[in-house]
């Protein structure tokens, strides 16, 4: 969910830019934004999609949906909405910025950079610093560190307190063996209202680089106290303690780090194993592994969701719903969770709940033919035969589309991947590239 939150924040930054450049938004659009603002992302999606059904050419609704789907990691869908937004309204900086974000996430950095540069050219208004931040990150990725530094400095010219830019600059100076300048930037980042992740470990590294081991230990300890799962700070702290000759403390911290690593690694491998078991039909073993994953990481949404699916397919409808409700709480934007809940309610004879959940699934993902199939079954049980037929027809139509591939029921939202052709389209690359 962190990534979703991050991308949604990005959308907010751009909202003002888009508002300033589009005709007066109507009340429904505002309602969607209010929901977005409150964190009710599902509701905002529903509202924006409603707008698009009424007015398919609404660039603002498409734009916001693009931002939300970017945050959900559904880049192909996000790009589709962005393309719609740009169709009749090509000149907006915010749209190019959004294009840059999507391109960056799918990995085509030079093309992303070009989009951000285009965004600045078209005008980003209050979002200009955001574009420079992205440019800085991309230039760093492209090993153009001087250009990255210049970009981050532009951010700070526009927003002197931008903690992220201070951190990025600090890290670059540190990696350029200039720890004194790094310390100055990192302290600025640390002084912000909410210091970004990574500032403690970087500052600890910088202090170590100048030989101030005491300050290094102190800041790293603060990082660990603030977030006990901050792996970087924990590792650095152990190392600096050992270098300082504080062997027993260093060994203890490295022991904690090792336990944390083993926990993460065990969780990942158990989850992978559970998916493989489920895919090969060994549902009892899959359930055992998933329970173990959740014992280690009780709120791990993908495991909650997959365990729900496994239980559903083992005929344990009540147990499935119990898990799926938790999964929905952890991640309210996974269409599979709603689909499974719809199936569970249908099996329990709770048709209106089943309908509500399946419509939610369909709101989030309009491409998956399993959702209208389930809707067709629910409508049929509710004796709404015309709607049932329409839903089955839609399902068949979706299945007949080129490139359709049946969905793996045990994939989770973490596993959604855009295919190669979609990535190339997003990146504006030639087909043979």
């Amino acid at each position, binding site marked *: 969910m962190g990534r979703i939150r991050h991308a949604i924040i990005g959308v907010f930054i751009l909202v003002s830019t888009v508002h300033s450049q589009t005709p007066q938004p109507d009340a429904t659009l505002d309602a969607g934004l209010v929901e977005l603002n409150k964190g009710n992302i599902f509701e905002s999606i529903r509202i924006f999609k409603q707008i698009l059904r009424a007015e398919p050419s609404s660039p603002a609704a498409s734009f916001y949906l693009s931002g939300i789907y970017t945050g959900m990691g559904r880049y192909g869908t996000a790009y589709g909405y962005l393309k719609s937004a740009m169709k009749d309204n090509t000149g907006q900086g915010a749209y190019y910025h959004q294009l840059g974000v999507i391109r960056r996430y*799918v990995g085509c950095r030079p093309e992303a950079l070009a989009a951000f540069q285009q965004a600045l050219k078209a005008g980003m208004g209050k979002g200009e610093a955001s574009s420079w931040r992205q440019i800085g990150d991309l230039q760093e990725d492209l090993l153009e560190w001087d250009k990255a530094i210049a970009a981050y400095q532009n951010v700070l010219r526009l927003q002197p307190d931008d903690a992220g830019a201070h951190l990025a600059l600090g890290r670059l100076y540190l990696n350029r*063996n200039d720890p004194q300048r790094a310390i100055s930037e990192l302290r600025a980042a640390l002084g912000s209202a909410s210091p970004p992740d990574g500032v403690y470990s970087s500052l600890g590294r910088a202090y170590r680089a100048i030989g101030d081991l005491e300050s290094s230990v102190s800041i790293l300890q603060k990082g660990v106290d603030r977030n006990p799962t901050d792996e970087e700070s924990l590792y650095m702290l152990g190392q600096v303690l050992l270098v300082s000759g504080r062997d027993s403390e260093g060994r203890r911290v490295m022991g904690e780090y090792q336990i944390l690593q083993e926990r993460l690694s065990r969780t990942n491998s158990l989850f992978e194993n559970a998916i493989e078991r489920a895919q090969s039909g060994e549902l009892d073993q899959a359930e055992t592994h998933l329970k173990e994953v959740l014992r280690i990481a009780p709120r791990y949404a993908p495991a909650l969701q997959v365990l729900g699916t496994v239980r559903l397919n083992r005929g344990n409808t009540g147990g499935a719903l119990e898990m799926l409700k938790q999964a929905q709480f952890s991640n309210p934007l996974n269409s599979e969770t709603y689909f499974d809940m719809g199936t569970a309610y249908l099996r329990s004879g709770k048709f209106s709940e089943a309908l509500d959940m399946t419509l939610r699934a369909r709101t989030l993902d309009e491409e998956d033919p399993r959702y209208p199939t389930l809707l067709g079954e629910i409508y049929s049980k509710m004796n709404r035969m015309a709607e049932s037929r329409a839903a089955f027809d839609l399902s068949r139509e979706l299945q007949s589309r080129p490139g359709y591939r049946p969905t793996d029921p045990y994939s989770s939202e973490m596993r959604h*991947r855009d295919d190669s052709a979609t*990535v190339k389209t997003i990146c504006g690359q030639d087909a043979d590239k």
Partner: protein
Amino acid sequence: MRTSSTRIFWILVIVGAAASALHSESGFPVFVDIAEKVGITLMNICGGSQKDYIVEANGNGAAFLDYDNDGEVDVLIVNGSTLEHYKKGGDPMVALYRNVGGHFVDVTESAHLRKNGWGMGSCVADYNNDGFPDVYITAYGPNVLFRNNGDGTFTDVTASAGVGDTRWGTGCAFGDYDRDGNVDLYVANYVSFDEKTVRTRGANDLCRYMGADVFCGPVGLPGQPDVLYHNNGDGTFSDVTAKAGIRDPNYYGFGVIFSDLDNDGWPDIYVANDSQPNLLFRNNRNGTFSEVGLSSGAALNEAGRPQSGMGVAIGDYDGNGLPDIFVTNFARDTNTLYKNLGNMFFIDSTVSAGLGEISLPYLGWGTSLADLDNDGRPDIFVANGQVYPQVDRLNVGQKYFQRKELYRNLGNGKFEEIARASPDLLIGKSSRGASVADFDDDGDLDILVININDRPSFYRNDGGNRNHWIGFRLEGTRSNRSAIGARVEIETGGRRQISYVVSGGSYLSQNDLRVHFGLGEVTRVDRVRIRWPNGNTEESGPVEADRVITIKEAKAAQ
């Protein structure tokens, strides 16, 4: 034509003059590619040009060894195959070149080394203590042990020796971990690869690099565990991986080296792993090891992140008497220099040593920490090359063909990149393995590099021998005969240097087993102290510089 030739002539003159100027400015030797001139021309085979599968991308290594004990170091090159050929048994796995006065003659056939498969790398040691170096070849498919018969021929003894691991072997190294006088064998394994099940280029986002469709893996493919073989002393080996506590969590193993990293006289094992933490197995002196990579600081980089370890080199770059570790890594990441602080603790000194930002565009493989200018301080060489040919179509600051990196040790904990003085090192290749030896016995170290789907580069060191030097060829009598693991310490005018007899290391490659020291302007070594692999020590000296001295381990205990 005349105009063109004239132009080329003047370009060469200008380039040569520029190189000489740099050379004279820096005092650092120039490296000249003489591969074709000396007859090292084997075309590397390693899959197709598009690198659709990971098995096609990792290339091969090479070894320097004096297989016929004539005093001239010979060359063994390992070769790969293609998926199509491999279905029919593969291609010749090795080529052996005999050194005849500085020119190399292919003697593969007469040496009975013709064997087909998909070779990867090699390591060298006299595993049966008969006085002739034997060769172990790792492979995608069964590995092979060639016993040197002592008459210019080899025999494949894999089956009888029990070392035919069928997994995808990469790096290997010999070392006598239990000090029983017989070298044991560590083999790093990579991933489980099956063309039938592995996904195609660009199949998902694990098969993309910066937006381009590239081969899948290693991430997403199951790793394979490494293996440790104990030498039983009767021509056979036993798999003691579990018994010896070698617990490799199926990491993607590449470079491996035996080295006494804590200076307790017992060889430890360091493994560079691709995309995962490196492993350091500390020798418990009782036939078992403990994995201490994380607590030692040598598993991750300074920020606590695993890198993509490829090659590994050992050397005392800061002169504190302890071996430091240098690991080559993937592009957009630094290679990593782990400074040995003693007590099996290392600190990542990459950035402060000046090896950070400069190495980011390059994907490093074969490497050495060796004194290339004979000034008494080990320098760093790195062979580079991307694994994805597709990067050439991206504008991302990287190319498939990459230049080499050469870092001069400045003696103050820092290095200076000096490859520009050697135009041949700047020619882009997609290089993999690299080995170091003074092949022409002129007193400076030369470098052999394997280039994927291309002919090798053989860089002759021109000018390193302006400084004085000394070499040692060690022969164990109670220790293993190759003296692998011996620590050599020399003292010149109060200054000490150390080095080791090392098997394996670099990337899939083997350096000359002779130990080489640069002496600067010093013409005499005051004292030589050898700690033999079995722990016994011997001292000798003074000895005159500029020669290779053979030292045989004393039969009596010291």
